[in-house]
């Protein structure tokens, strides 16, 4: 019985699980769809991309880092194109400047 209850709760929780959030990663057309900012859909951010402004990587939630684009925004880190497939078509893993550090990092971005 206890196992069934735990399984039911896990199933309920899994119903709405997502790799993205209003903070970073959700699709969007306007800022009100995001916690802070929407990078409009286009070649750089296919489907639109919710993100938050940042000055250092510490400003970004887990799984993302502060890319020196658009004045400093959080983008998902990656090790290859496969890591970016969850964002949909048109996304790939590419290098970007880490804001405030003068080094390169790999982040998911549009073609």
């Amino acid at each position, binding site marked *: 019985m206890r196992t069934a209850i735990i399984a039911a709760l896990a199933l*309920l929780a899994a119903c*709405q699980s*997502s*790799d*993205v*959030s*209003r903070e970073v*990663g*959700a*699709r*969007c057309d306007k800022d*009100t*769809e*995001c916690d802070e900012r929407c990078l409009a859909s286009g070649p750089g951010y296919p*489907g639109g991309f*919710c993100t938050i402004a940042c000055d250092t990587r510490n400003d970004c939630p887990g799984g993302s880092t502060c890319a020196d684009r658009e004045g400093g925004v959080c983008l998902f880190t990656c090790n290859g194109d496969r890591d970016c497939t*969850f*964002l*949909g078509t048109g996304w790939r893993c590419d290098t970007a400047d880490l804001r405030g550090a003068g080094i390169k990092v790999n982040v998911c971005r549009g073609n």
Partner: protein
Amino acid sequence: MPRQLIALAAAFAATTAGAYALHAQPAAPGGDPLPAEAAAPPPVQPAPTVQPVEPPSSVAPTPVATPKPAVSAPDGEPGDQIVSVEAGLASGGRVTPGGLRINGHYLYQLSERDWFDGAVGFTFGSGQGACFRDRSDKVICRHGLADGTGVELSARIRRMLTPRGVFHPFAQIGIGLGLARFSDDDVSGVTFPLHGGGGVRVAVAPTIAVVIEDELALGIGSFNRGLGTQPQFSFTFTAGVEFQLR
């Protein structure tokens, strides 16, 4: 109250009362226990013997006044009515509104222990946005405990249980029909919750009682923006005052 509505309530009570798994002792109408003399069957009297007929007396016997319970209907018949207002907190989450809860109740006595409870409830939470589109364009909402607004009409059956001192506990079940709204997300829906809970009332005056209730609501809701049918879950705690209408 129109007679048709009362009849409908009585029919609802008859079908719902069977769902109770309670073993409460009978309580008097109005929330007070019956006196022991009233609850016990009358003692069996021995057969009368023939006595000589006495001449009629010129002095009529003095009628004895019977004390009436303070919050009971005349002669113990059902029909008492109560209105109440309550305030408290409701927990929300996802697409269930939560926050400040204000309830208004109208109670009508159906039988010795059962009351029909028609209520309107308002929930006031924040309008903060918490929905987003995932990468497959599916809308996901993650509202907090105190987000959203709602209004609900509900019908319950309240069963009064055995009093414990000045405290008169009760259990209740019911159904509701509501509207939920999350303004910043432009999400709205119709909800169909089932209610179950209980509480306690304490009479503080002949026609006034303080009541505390907690209740669990489970159900479903149908929402716009592609959310479709979503589960509803809420826990409510309220306190208020009841006024007997007669």
